């Protein structure tokens, strides 16, 4: 979308990143996963249920997976709006991050319920729903990629048409 001639650089930048609000859940869950995972890996401050039930190596792995998932999702969404020609790359990065985020959320849900019993049913349920939403979104993104490749003729990297 070409910016009007009298736009300042800041306004053009804002207009370019404004459509990020189209994906608030994906973006914000990605940000929280990246930040939470990074903090966990750096400081080792894992939630009590995770610390109590899992070995430290697995806890670290959980943090790394979560941080990587968040970073992939955020970078995928930002890439699409920063460089519209790299639409397919952005979708693939987002999809690559959604699967590990689903796994990380499912892990937390299972661990919380196992550790705290019925008291953790609500947060466990919420986390499982987030995991299911991640899987559903990953499948939707996959179908979207296939449709774009079919009709626009993307070569798996850039949108060529």
């Amino acid at each position, binding site marked *: 979308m070409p910016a009007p001639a009298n736009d300042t650089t800041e306004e053009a930048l804002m207009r370019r990143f404004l459509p990020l609000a189209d994906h608030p859940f994906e973006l914000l869950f990605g940000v929280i996963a990246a930040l939470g995972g990074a903090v966990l890996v750096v400081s080792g401050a894992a939630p009590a249920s995770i610390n109590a039930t899992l070995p430290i190596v697995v806890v670290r792995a959980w943090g790394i997976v979560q941080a990587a998932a968040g970073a992939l999702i955020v970078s995928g969404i930002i890439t699409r709006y920063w460089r519209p020609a790299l639409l397919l790359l952005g979708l693939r990065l987002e999809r690559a991050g959604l699967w590990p985020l689903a*796994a990380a959320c499912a892990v937390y849900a299972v661990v919380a319920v196992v550790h705290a019993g019925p008291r953790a049913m609500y947060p466990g349920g919420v986390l499982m729903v987030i995991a299911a939403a991640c899987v559903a979104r990953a499948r939707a993104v996959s179908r979207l990629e296939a449709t774009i490749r079919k009709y626009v003729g993307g070569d798996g990297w850039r949108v060529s048409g």
Partner: protein
Amino acid sequence: MASEWLTPAVVALLAGGAGSAVTTIVRARVDWRKARLEEDRQPVELENVFIGGAEKAVQALQVALDRAESTIGRLERSLSERDEKLQERDRKIAELEQDLTNTLARLARLQERCEQLTARLADLRADDRPTLGDR
């Protein structure tokens, strides 16, 4: 204790998620390399893609033009039918006007004839009066 099965399950889940991510990224990387190679080696294929797209666009345009042409033909036919009806009506009006003109002309002739006869009658009456006076 629950942690006996929990740790392997968690590891399997995390490995599954990470594996999916790595697979997706590796596949994207492979596609990217393939696309770069194809771009370098066969730019003609890319042109063919554009040409194919252009052909499809031209075909779609052709269909749209055919449809527009048939619509124009239908409209032209209905217009010509309407023109014929209008011409027929004009012709009837012209005939009626001609009849009216003929009737007016005939009426004028009759009126003139009538005036002539009236004048002649007046002349005859005028001619008759001196004759009576002479007697």
